[in-house]
């Protein structure tokens, strides 16, 4: 099915049966704490929760693992970027104490800026950042795996999004098989004329894509014309405001319980995030201090995590 293109599988799990509004609430209740939390320990716990939720929704660990492989370049980039430039961040992001340096990523003689000192703090921060990406990506994937196109349309209707936008999105999903066949057809047609797109240079690759992308686009725009005529011919636009919808979503018992739980979780999550700033709890710096203590790197003032030592 076309919707399986973006991960939806029509299964019968607890999460599949929820109202789409609750499904989106799950997404936000997982990603908002990820955005506001800083501490890799908390983030790892959140990640474990997502994996568990995904498993209940019948996303296998193997598929999830394969999917995460695509993130490896991004994870590596984040790691190196944070290790390189952590020192350049100003006061609000880094601790006020002297960092526990471990090694130089760039030898000193090649320095053009004060970057490349790998410290325990930068490693902890970077691991939190990597956790965060994984959480956001997996949350999105979870949402799509349990939310059908019909769910999305019903949700948008309920949120009173204008029918033009709702219809466009509905049509986009409905027309996916045609778009896919179109894309395949064009690629095959060009391959049959000896076309191949192989280049290490991304700009060259874009240029080489022109013989496939231009016909895909022109054919798509031609089809759009016919599609528009067909949509018009079915009375679209008669009265967008009073239009009825076959599928109406309504909260059931389990939706209410789940939604209440999620709201509570979001509020607690934001409170934790605030505490990180205000009190130093659940902040990566607190975790760093614990690690420094365990590794014998100091400082001695564990009870004043943000205070100078």
């Amino acid at each position, binding site marked *: 099915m076309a919707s399986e293109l973006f991960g939806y599988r029509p299964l019968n799990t607890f999460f599949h049966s929820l109202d789409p509004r609750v499904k989106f609430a799950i997404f936000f209740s997982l990603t908002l704490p990820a955005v506001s939390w800083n501490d890799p320990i908390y983030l790892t716990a959140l990640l474990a929760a997502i994996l568990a939720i995904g498993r209940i929704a019948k996303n296998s660990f193997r598929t999830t693992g394969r999917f995460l492989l*695509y993130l490896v370049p991004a994870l590596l980039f*984040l790691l190196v970027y*944070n290790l390189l430039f952590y020192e350049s961040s100003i006061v609000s992001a880094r601790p006020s104490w002297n960092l526990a340096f471990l090694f130089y990523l760039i030898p000193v003689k090649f320095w053009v800026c004060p970057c490349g000192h790998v410290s325990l703090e930068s490693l902890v*921060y970077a691991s939190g950042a990597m956790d965060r990406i994984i959480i956001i*990506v997996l949350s999105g994937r979870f949402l799509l795996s349990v939310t059908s196109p019909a769910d*999305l349309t019903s949700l948008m209707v309920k949120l009173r999004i204008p029918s033009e936008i709702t219809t466009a999105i509905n*049509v986009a999903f409905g027309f*996916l098989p045609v778009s896919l066949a179109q894309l395949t057809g064009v690629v095959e047609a060009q391959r049959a004329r000896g076309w191949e797109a192989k280049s290490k240079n991304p700009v060259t690759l874009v240029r080489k894509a022109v013989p496939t992308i231009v016909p895909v686009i022109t054919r798509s725009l*031609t089809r759009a014309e016919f599609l528009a005529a067909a949509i018009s011919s079915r009375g679209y636009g008669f009265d967008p405001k009073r239009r009825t919808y076959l599928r109406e979503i309504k909260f059931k018992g389990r939706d209410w319980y789940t939604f209440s739980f999620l709201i509570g979780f979001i509020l607690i999550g934001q409170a934790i995030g605030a505490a990180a700033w205000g009190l130093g709890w659940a902040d990566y710096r607190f975790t760093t201090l614990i690690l420094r203590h365990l590794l014998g790197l100091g400082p001695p003032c564990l009870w004043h995590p943000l205070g100078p030592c």
Partner: protein
Amino acid sequence: MMPRKPLLNTRQISVAAVLGGLSLITEAFGLSLPGYLPGVNFNLVGAYLSIATMAAGPLGGIIVTILDSFTSSVGFYGLPFYWPHVFFLALFYKRIYSMKSTAMKVVGYWVVTAVALFIQYWGWFFLYVYVFKFATTIWPLAVYNFVGVIPYATFLAIYALIPGFVLVTAPNFVRPNWNFPYLKWVTAASIILSAIAVASQAGLR
């Protein structure tokens, strides 16, 4: 009671739907070069977004971004950060389209896209550094993209090369038969908001 005036006609709906569907497919199939951050893939979504804006106006471009966000790695969080680009392009597009000289059309389109992309970038920097906190500082990211050139050049190629090609070879497809009220003000507002968002955090990090 008179029905309300439609926001989009069926042509615009279809164009946005079809191009949005292509962007869905592109993301879902990973038809891209891996980027250095999630949501930063060198795929052709930018081309579809631009063409949808050209053919169907800013709402068309916005619909493509909504559809793209379903399969984007950063999900719906990235959605509004495309919009300054969409509005900026829409603001100048009719003028570009009406130019008589093909060369001037192409140059005009590339220049407008380059500026729009530059504006768009800062919104994404804001998202990655200040919202997602993927990194502690924005400036090396900016240097990598703009001074390092390759990422910016690649995205510019994506946003400008193919739509520009369509503009020149098949202009009927992208004739701007649309109107968007208060476009000037909406564009200005979106750019100013991006600038404020970045500036408010820039001093801290």
